[in-house]
């Protein structure tokens, strides 16, 4: 049984690592996805949960992809009376300590993708490179899907 559990864990670890992308194994990635871009728009948002598996603090510096003319790291703020505003994420928003998650999700932190040449269509995926203050950049395959 121990062997079975051991191999199951090994397989799970391999599967998990295949999602890590290349470059770094100290930051793990889960559920990278992007909204399909509606027609008539040239922007959309990319979401991902990054987990710091190292013993040192880190900070996301940028997320780049060839699919967007440029990307910005934004945070949606929704006030108590429902006013939504997008503000550029500041360094403090992008810090994550050992064991901490940096979650990009709807109505919160997101990678804003501006200047889409080819529409992002459900079912496809594209590479996004995340760069950090510490360590190697991480290239992640981001799936285009509905939430």
């Amino acid at each position: 049984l121990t062997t079975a559990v051991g191999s199951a864990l090994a397989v799970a670890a391999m599967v998990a690592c295949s999602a890590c992308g290349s470059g770094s194994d100290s930051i793990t990635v889960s559920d990278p996805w992007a909204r399909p871009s509606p027609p008539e728009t040239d922007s959309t948002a990319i979401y991902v949960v990054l987990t710091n598996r190292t013993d040192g603090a880190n900070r996301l510096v940028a997320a780049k992809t060839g699919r967007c003319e440029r990307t910005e790291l934004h945070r949606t703020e929704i006030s108590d009376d429902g006013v939504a505003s997008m503000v550029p994420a500041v360094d403090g928003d992008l810090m994550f300590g050992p064991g901490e998650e940096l979650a990009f999700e709807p109505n919160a932190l997101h990678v804003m993708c501006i200047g889409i040449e080819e529409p992002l269509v459900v079912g496809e995926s594209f590479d996004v490179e995340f760069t950090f203050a510490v360590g190697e950049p991480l290239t992640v395959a981001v799936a285009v899907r509905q939430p």
Partner: protein
Amino acid sequence: MSTPETSAPETSAPETSNPDVDPMTAPLPRRSSGRFGVSMPVLTAAVVAVAVLGVVVGRWAVGVFSPHLYAGTVLQADEPAPAMSALSFADTGEPVDFGAESGDVVLIFFGYTNCPDVCPATMSTVTRALDQLDPDQRARTEVWMVSVDPGRDDAESLQTYVEFFDPEFRGVTGTVKAIDQASTQYGVFYELEPTAAEGADDYLVDHTASLFGVGPDGALRVIWSPTVTAEELGADLRELL
């Protein structure tokens, strides 16, 4: 729910008067133990049955009589929702008119097509909430998106945008003055915000991203935060319909 065997004595009683059966050897009617002529297992079964019935009826009564707790903010005033008649539907170009939709629930959202996070997030929440309605409820729910960015959203692009989420959704737009008037009436704030990058055509719009629910009677009934879940919104819509 099965009835316990309390009726057994009555049905078996006539057998004792059957002339073909010797009353001395015939099996006794099942009327054996218990002071009231009911056996303990039967009594227990009856008590359990009553208890179960009580729970079932209780739950039904709670469902029927207790008010639905809306996830959105419920407005008590019976005033008609602000008409927005100076604005037009993006698909037909006709002035916005609630009258024609009488009996329907109308969900109104103020947004803009170049909004990358909160608008598509809310629109897909609405889409998923509508999936929880039955076909009749769905047919009686209208979804309108009012553009707060008339400088970039022309009627055609706005309609194309909303149809991306659902072919039944309708864009609503008009002059800046008409949009200002409608947003004031709904208590919607919006303001153009330049982005970090340069370029006159590149800006974001801070805006009230709440969803407004107009009831079948034409009164503004519920306001939802953009963070409402599809499940919450679906349940509220079923109640509102």
